[in-house]
């Protein structure tokens, strides 16, 4: 390596290059103005995270300074900005670790020893770091650094070492460090594999103004991709269990693939940002929906990955195998590339998520794609595709033929993509049973839309492009489109404007303005509280990004766990007579297995006793003893409650984390032993789906169902133990209402048989979401079952989410949330003489 300045752009010995990177003042102002508008756009639509917005502000402000610096100062400035970005996003301590480990790795690349020994040392270092990542050895670092450190070094080190071994022109220290720590990476664990030679070669290669403008064009394109992704993610994406018709199957295939828009959107944002600093990198994707063959698809989607594979694996393999003949060498080289893609995909998964990816559908997906690309490659060898320098083709027959091939390629890709992202091979296979469903005109909707897009896109792609003046006008056109897009999007994000279009449009825009989890991912996150998070599958999963922020020891109980397994229908219970310190305070389980103070089995004289059933929110996940809404309400009743026959109030907390509605049948039987006057069943949303999921689980585990009405529903749904989750959920779908009604009916009947009053309390999630879809039917079923229904749906209204929930990855209410619930519930119940006896009134005596 050598010191920056000797042979980099802007050298004093090269007057032309000194002029590189300079733009006129009005051009500078035009770029800065657009960046200001872009900032507003990013903020209006809450693109990505708060961390990204801060990084974007740093980037744009950095550009404003960078663009006026002398060329030789810009790369060091970019490096400083990049390091600052890491501190901004990751905090000082984590940034220090990332930079320290990174410098060590870069240092290993440049040790004055033979290349093979440097490679060996890098591998050893990688193994040690991997052991830390996997927690096989203790590491003095936060888990938060691994995805970012991994994304900076896991592939770039390979490319960098490859280039070092063949470098004709050594890189400067600043250039090397800027390459590894490049600015946008601090925010994006999923990052394009930027080629080190391209990074150097394309630095201020052409006109700076055009470079900066292209950066903005690409960032805006990225935002549009992300908004399209959001619309699909929130409104159109389906869970496999929901697919019951051919139309839904087609919708699933298309939308599941189009979720990839998040990756293409992010990559456009990332590379667009790099353009602001003079790095004129290639495009990351090129109209991948218009791929006319599988080789074409491979060349268009994630181009950086394709180039990386081609450079480091494909060409070396083919050149080595040339003696076998070019055709054989190419076939073997292609198979080698896909084998390495599968392996490196698993390698990437490890660094980003800390676990190994060993799924049969992952292996099969790459194998299938490899075979398809090989076949296409052999066809192309015999029949090379028509190329033109301009890309234009005005033969409409050829274009229609291309559109037809593109259409076919698209559907095959959608099908194998759905296989790749399926939870299991059996669940993917069971999904196709939807083809036996009812065929309606809706089955043509998505195929027609896709066909229209492909035909229009094919013809547009092959229109003759202008040269000279006409090309200049196309730059002006691109600028106009970029600016207009930003202004239109900002305009429609303003409620006063979007409502002018119509309420549905305004609602859609409002939903696109936040980066929340979809209804499907919220359901997965809830399940993730109680089980190892299942298939947090795709790399672009927002769910994974939320969940990956969760500390490993989040709310962990120190020492023994809170629950133990039982052999009955409930499967688990709290461990009696157990107390432990947790990260959120003391958790005390009394001798009866309730997270509560101790009580006698028989109520003391003149005591009004209530039992409370529910799951983790009732139990008080995330708050200490005495902070649960149950204990707060009990204290308030004893302080302020009506006096008459009863001088004392007790509320017994039977909440168990992870309990689903049918499991409360076990809880209610326990509760009735304590002779309560009233039993409060607390529901927290998604009761229908959670009840169905639980029945599917017990059937799968071959656990006996001791409740005849539930067993009857299960039999009607045709559930058997050998069904996969997706099929079981699909078969139960038409019976969810009946299942919940049976569950509630049984609970209410048991309560009344014990002489107590059944009360149903609906408690919302701390933030609004699609979980609420089931609420109206749930309330209706509860009322029909004979409960007194208290709907606390608006208990958190007016509160900011951050002030009442535990964390971004944990939507349980915190201590403040519990206080709000306690106050509202106290008010609601104390005004109900049918639940709580008023002063001077009497209730039925205990038996």
């Amino acid at each position, binding site marked *: 390596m050598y010191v920056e300045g000797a042979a980099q752009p802007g050298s004093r010995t090269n007057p032309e290059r000194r002029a590189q990177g300079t733009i006129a003042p009005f051009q500078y102002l035009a770029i800065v103005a657009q960046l200001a508008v872009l900032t507003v756009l990013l903020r209006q639509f809450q693109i990505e995270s708060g961390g990204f917005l801060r990084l974007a502000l740093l980037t744009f402000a950095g550009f404003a300074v960078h663009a006026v610096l002398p060329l030789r100062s810009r790369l060091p400035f970019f490096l400083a900005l990049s390091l600052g970005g890491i501190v901004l996003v990751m905090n000082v301590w984590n940034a220090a670790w990332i930079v320290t480990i990174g410098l060590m790795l870069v240092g290993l690349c440049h040790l004055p020893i033979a290349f093979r020994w440097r490679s060996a040392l890098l591998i050893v270092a990688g193994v040690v770091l991997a052991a830390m990542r996997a927690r096989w050895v203790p590491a003095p670092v936060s888990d938060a650094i691994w995805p970012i450190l991994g994304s900076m070094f896991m592939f770039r080190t390979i490319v960098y070492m490859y280039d070092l071994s063949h470098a004709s022109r050594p890189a400067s220290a600043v250039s090397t460090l800027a390459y590894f720590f490049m600015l946008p990476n601090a925010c994006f664990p999923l990052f394009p594999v930027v080629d080190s030679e391209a990074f150097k070669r394309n630095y201020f290669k052409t006109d700076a103004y055009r470079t900066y403008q292209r950066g903005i064009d690409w960032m805006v394109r990225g935002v549009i991709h992300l908004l399209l992704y959001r619309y699909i993610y929130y409104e159109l994406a389906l869970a496999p269990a929901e697919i019951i018709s051919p139309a839904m199957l087609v919708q699933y295939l298309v939308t599941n693939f189009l979720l990839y828009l998040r990756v293409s959107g992010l990559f456009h944002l990332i590379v667009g940002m790099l353009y602001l600093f003079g790095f004129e990198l290639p495009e990351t994707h090129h109209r991948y929906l218009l791929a006319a063959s599988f080789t074409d698809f491979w060349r268009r989607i994630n181009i950086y990955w394709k180039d990386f594979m*081609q450079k480091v694996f494909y060409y070396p393999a083919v050149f080595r195998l040339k003696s076998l003949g070019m055709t054989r060498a190419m076939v073997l080289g292609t198979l080698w590339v896909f084998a390495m893609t599968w392996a490196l995909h698993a390698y990437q998964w490890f660094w980003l998520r800390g676990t190994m990816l060993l799924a049969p559908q992952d292996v099969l997906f790459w194998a299938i794609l490899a075979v398809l690309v090989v076949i296409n490659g052999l066809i192309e060898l015999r029949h090379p595709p028509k*190329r033109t320098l301009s890309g234009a083709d005005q033969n409409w027959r050829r274009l229609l033929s291309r559109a037809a091939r593109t259409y076919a390629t698209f559907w095959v890709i959608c099908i194998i993509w759905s296989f790749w992202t399926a939870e299991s091979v059996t669940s993917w296979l069971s999904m196709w049973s939807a083809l036996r469903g009812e065929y309606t005109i809706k089955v043509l909707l998505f195929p027609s839309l896709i066909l229209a897009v492909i035909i229009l896109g094919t013809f547009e792609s092959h229109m003759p492009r202008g040269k000279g003046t006409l090309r200049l006008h196309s730059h002006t056109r691109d600028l106009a489109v970029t600016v207009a897009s930003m202004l239109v999007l900002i305009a429609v994000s303003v409620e006063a404007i979007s409502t002018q279009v119509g309420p549905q449009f305004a609602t859609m825009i409002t939903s696109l303005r936040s980066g929340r989890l979809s209804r499907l991912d919220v359901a997965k996150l809830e399940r993730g509280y109680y089980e190892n998070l299942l298939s947090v599958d795709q790399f672009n999963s927002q769910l994974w990004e939320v969940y990956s922020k969760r500390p490993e020891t989040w709310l962990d109980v120190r020492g023994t766990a809170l629950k133990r397994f039982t052999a009955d229908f409930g499967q688990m219970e709290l461990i009696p007579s157990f107390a432990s310190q947790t990260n959120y305070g003391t958790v005390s389980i009394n001798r009866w297995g309730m997270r509560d103070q101790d009580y006698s089995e028989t109520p003391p004289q003149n005591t009004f006793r209530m039992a409370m059933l529910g799951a983790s929110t009732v139990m008080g996940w995330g708050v200490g003893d005495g902070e649960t809404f149950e204990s707060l309400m009990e204290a308030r009743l004893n302080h302020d409650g009506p006096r008459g026959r009863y001088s004392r109030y007790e509320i017994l907390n039977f909440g168990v984390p992870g309990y689903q509605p049918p499991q409360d049948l076990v809880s209610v039987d326990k509760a009735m032993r304590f002779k309560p006057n009233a039993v409060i069943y607390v529901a927290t949303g998604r009761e229908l789906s959670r009840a169905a999921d639980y029945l599917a689980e017990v059937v799968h585990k071959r656990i006996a169902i001791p409740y005849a009405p539930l067993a009857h529903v299960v039999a009607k749904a045709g559930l058997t133990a050998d069904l996969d989750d997706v099929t079981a959920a699909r078969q139960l779908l038409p019976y969810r209402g009946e299942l919940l009604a049976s569950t509630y009916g049984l609970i209410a009947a048991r309560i009344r048989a014990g002489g107590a009053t059944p009360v149903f309390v609906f408690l919302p999630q701390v933030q609004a979401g699609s979980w609420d879809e089931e609420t109206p039917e749930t309330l209706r079923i509860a009322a029909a079952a004979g409960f007194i229904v208290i709907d606390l749906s608006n208990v958190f209204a007016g509160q900011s989410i951050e002030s009442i929930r535990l964390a971004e990855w944990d939507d349980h209410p915190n201590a403040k949330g519990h206080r709000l619930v306690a106050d509202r519930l106290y008010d609601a119940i104390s005004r109900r003489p049918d639940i709580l006896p008023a002063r001077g009134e009497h209730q039925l005596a205990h038996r």
Partner: protein
Amino acid sequence: MSDDIAAAVKGFILEQFLPGENPDELTPETPLITGGILDSIATLKLTMFLEERWGVALAAHETSPEHFDTISRIAQLVRSKRA
């Protein structure tokens, strides 16, 4: 000599990958790899042509855009191999 090399390379590219294209449109500086004219299959065919025509041995890393993106760079590469 380098003009002969460039002319031969140009002729090969036009014949194999751009049939019917106006030869004047293909200049010594037209981007071939970054411009999408040469994909991996075409690059390998061109490599074979260069090796057979001038008896040079190319390495895998020499198919990078640095050496292969334009006719002038390709000609320069062949010239350096023959020197």
